């Protein structure tokens, strides 16, 4: 006979305000099988958990139902409490009377009735719960890090320093990411490259890090502790083993007018190139789109054209015939650190975004974005660190900075705050003033959001020490008028219209996830939000985990992040990964499918629908040992517990532990007592 204990939580006032907890306790006390029912103000607190433990011990409970918040919040907590009292943790379930009841209803009677129903449903379920034992699976102590920006670099180094091997995959020809493009960084104004490049070299030289640059993840199979990653090494046209990074090919290349991605289009590069001198690895890549030889081939010219780089290379490393190749790596965990892209504010916009045609970006040469300003200000940039405007190369005397371009503007498709723009705009005004002493920096802003250590002080310094002029208001239009760029804005503090004749305008555009993030997320079976940022498993308590076990996230692929946050997240993922690798075997929730081999007829409908290939074929033998049939069996290490096999099994010969047909039937049945 079931002996169920019911524990009703007030959650302070969160539940008790709309749910009559005393009535819930009383009603559920008389439910068949319930032997104990009580309420408490904070069931998740230590004394609350102690009540659960005490009741289990005193009443010899066979099941526990905690009527409180979402199982996503505290299922682990209460299962842990049950386990401490000697009850199998899987005999404990939560009835969600907070998120699904008290918080969404105001009528006390209705909410209480519903809370009772929810309690009954879970009580009936728990009656059919069975003790489950944790599954143990082996772990490959090797991590895959996707993305070689600062987050990926940090994660890779921390994991490798912790003793595990790392496979780092970077889609560009060099690691370094956006941070390598920056001139100085807030709030300390230290040189970005100076702090970053040593870390990049460290990656290259680390004995436990294997770097695949100019590569992308092709597919990922397997499950936590036992992934198999297939990596596409894109054709670089350069033999990585032969190249010594001398740069002769680059010098020989006749196509030299290609806009440099590293310089955000402001500087130029050759067709075979390394993006910047400190690139890691220092191996060039041939840009086949812009290479004269390949252009000619595409036009149908059969004769080999150019070939200067090949001639120049003394090592014979240039290989025009090279094709994409694939390598597979066995790993036990994955860190996603794919970072961000800047919102492109030109006319062509992805679906759902509107762009800022009225700001003239792309039409007016002296309207640039934040990253372009970084390259103008960078000592390694095309101007050698001198601030010169793109149209005529003169130092601009008046520069207007516009914040929140794209961010916080639901009308344009991006309602969120990009978080770093307030800080980098302040930084830009300072960099500008330090280089153009008589220049005037005008900033249009909505609010100044400078939460962070030393951040508010930093923006104040820009205003107070470096004289940046902050105008609170939005810019309605930017256009070219002769030699100047006219900026029409509105000062909401004075209530006056503002028109500025600027020499240059810098737009602080929003942060967006990298293109292709959705495809990557699908390969990894992880979810992403409406903007494409990867969803964390829990916004507060599991910020660097995803809902797919063994896949972690760091940096701006999860949300707009600045460098310190990205690094902190990266180190956090490293801690998670190293924690995962700390044992030889991994413990997994036993909520996996199980085949009843007596009734299975081996039609393998389950195999057809299983997304993980967890279904195996097993011979069944008669008493004399002759094979008399084939049935399905679930590999519990591979099964992730979706239960699709159960729904398609015609005879219901497979069950999903924790969500068995008996349990679900009992829940539906319980609702028959409305």
């Amino acid at each position, binding site marked *: 006979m079931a002996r169920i204990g019911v524990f009703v939580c007030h959650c302070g006032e969160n539940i008790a305000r709309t749910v009559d907890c005393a009535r819930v306790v009383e009603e559920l006390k008389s439910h068949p099988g319930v032997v104990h029912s009580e309420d408490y103000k904070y069931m998740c607190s230590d004394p609350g958990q102690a009540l659960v433990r005490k009741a289990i011990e005193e009443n010899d409970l066979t099941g526990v139902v905690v009527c409180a918040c979402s199982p996503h919040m505290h299922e682990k907590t209460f299962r842990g409490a049950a386990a401490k009292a000697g009850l199998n943790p899987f005999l404990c379930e939560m009835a969600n009377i907070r998120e699904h009841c008290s918080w969404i209803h105001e009528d006390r009677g209705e909410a209480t009735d519903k809370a009772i129903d929810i309690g009954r449903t879970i009580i009936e379920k728990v009656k059919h719960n069975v003790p489950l034992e944790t599954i143990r699976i082996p772990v490959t102590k090797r991590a895959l890090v996707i993305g070689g920006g600062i987050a990926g670099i940090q994660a890779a180094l921390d994991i490798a320093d912790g003793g595990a091997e790392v496979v780092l995959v970077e889609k560009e020809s060099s690691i370094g990411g956006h941070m390598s493009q920056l001139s100085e960084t807030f709030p300390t104004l230290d040189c970005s490259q100076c702090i970053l490049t040593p870390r990049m070299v460290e990656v290259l030289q680390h004995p436990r890090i294997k770097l695949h640059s100019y590569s992308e993840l092709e597919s990922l199979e397997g499950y936590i502790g036992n992934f198999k990653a297939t990596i596409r090494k894109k054709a670089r046209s350069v033999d990585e083993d032969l190249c010594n990074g001398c740069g002769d090919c680059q010098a020989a290349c006749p196509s030299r007018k290609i806009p440099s991605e590293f310089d955000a289009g402001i500087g130029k590069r050759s067709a075979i190139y390394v993006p910047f001198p400190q690139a890691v690895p220092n191996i060039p890549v041939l840009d086949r789109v812009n290479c004269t030889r390949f252009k000619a081939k595409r036009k149908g010219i059969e004769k080999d054209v150019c070939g200067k780089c090949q001639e120049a290379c003394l090592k014979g490393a240039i290989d025009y015939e090279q094709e994409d190749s694939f390598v597979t790596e066995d790993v036990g965990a994955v860190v996603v650190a794919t970072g961000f892209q800047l919102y492109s504010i030109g006319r062509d916009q992805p679906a759902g975004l509107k762009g800022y045609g009225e700001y003239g970006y792309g039409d007016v040469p002296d309207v640039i974005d934040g990253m372009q300003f970084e390259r103008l200000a960078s000592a390694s940039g095309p101007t050698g660190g001198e601030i010169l405007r793109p149209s005529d190369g003169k130092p601009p005397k008046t520069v207007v900075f516009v914040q929140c371009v794209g961010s916080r503007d639901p009308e344009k498709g991006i309602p969120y705050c990009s978080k770093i723009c307030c800080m980098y705009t302040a930084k830009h005004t300072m960099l500008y003033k330090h280089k153009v002493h008589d220049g005037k920096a005008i900033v249009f802003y909505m609010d100044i959001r400078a939460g962070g250590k030393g951040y508010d002080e930093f923006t104040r310094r820009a205003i107070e020490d470096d004289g940046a002029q902050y105008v609170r208001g939005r810019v309605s239009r930017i256009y070219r008028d002769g030699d100047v760029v006219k900026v029409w804005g509105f000062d909401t503090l004075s209530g006056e219209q503002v028109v500025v004749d600027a020499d240059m305008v810098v737009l602080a555009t929003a942060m967006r996830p990298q293109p292709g993030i959705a495809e990557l997320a699908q390969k990894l079976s992880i979810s992403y939000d409406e903007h494409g940022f990867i969803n964390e498993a829990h916004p507060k308590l599991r910020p660097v985990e995803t809902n797919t076990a063994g896949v972690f996230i760091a940096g701006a692929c999860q949300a707009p992040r600045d460098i310190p946050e990205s690094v902190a997240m990266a180190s956090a993922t490293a801690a998670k990964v190293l924690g995962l690798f700390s044992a030889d075997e991994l413990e997994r929730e036993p909520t996996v499918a199980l085949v009843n081999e007596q009734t299975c*007829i081996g039609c393998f409908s389950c195999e*057809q*629908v299983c997304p993980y290939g967890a279904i195996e074929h097993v011979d069944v033998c008669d008493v004399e040992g002759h094979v008399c049939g084939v049935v399905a069996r679930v590999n519990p290490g591979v099964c992730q517990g979706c239960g699709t096999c159960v729904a*398609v099994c*015609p*005879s*219901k*010969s497979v069950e999903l532990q924790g969500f068995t*047909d008996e349990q679900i*039937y009992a829940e539906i049945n319980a609702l028959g007592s409305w």
Partner: protein
Amino acid sequence: MKELRDLTRKLLADGDAGVVIGWEEGRRGARPAFITTPDDADKLIFDARCVHNLANYLNPRKPQVKALGKPAVVVKGCDAKAVAGLLREAQLTRDRVILIGVRCGGVVQTPEMPAELTEATVATRCYGCDVREPKLVDHLVGDARPEPPVTAALDRRIAELDALSPRERWQFWTSQLAKCTRCHACRQACPLCHCERCITDKTQPQWIESSSHLRGNFAWHLTRAQHLAGRCVGCGECERACPVGIPLSLINRKLQLVVKDLFDYTVTDDPEVPAPIGAYAVDDKQEFIE
């Protein structure tokens, strides 16, 4: 006929087959025959009264048939589709059965009817048949036969039902399903109902009540239809077996049309083509989903 009998004799005499399953003359018309000795081969017949889907006897959970040895089965086009279903669902391997295809020009509704095909007697399933000559065979016998008279009665009745309101359809089906005694003849007669333990016989939990009240009957017939969606070959054996005359073919045919409309799938005798349920396309229709 001679071709079929000679082949049967040879298969049995050479020991290639332990039993040839075909049709013979019974007191109430054609009926399944199990020929195990060459001498009995002359019992075999084939004409328009041979309505039975003999693929049913290939169900691996019929030990009394298995005991007769390797079967050779006479199949019409629609029967071959059922064999393909069994192959697709791993209930049979191709080397464990000999398939004797017969060219078919339609059958009558019940084996007791005269063999002459008229618009009134032709089975509804023969309308629009796309496999007059089965391809999934080891031997093919008989001459090509003329197309049977056309009767779209089934599709017409479905269209009539579709035109009614849900409430009217509900009245129609409650009056039909009230008759069901839950003998499960429909299941037993179906060549693709091959579970060891049918879901309706599962008692823990009892999703489908075994009682033959309308509640249990609705659960059963909804489930039977759903489980056969995309698998049913439309042979009509369920309806023919039903002792109380429930028009089950209406439901099966309706779902054939639905599956065609939703997934562009038509049941085939090619076992390599996967069934639509269990597969998916990323851009499947989903207008019904909010």
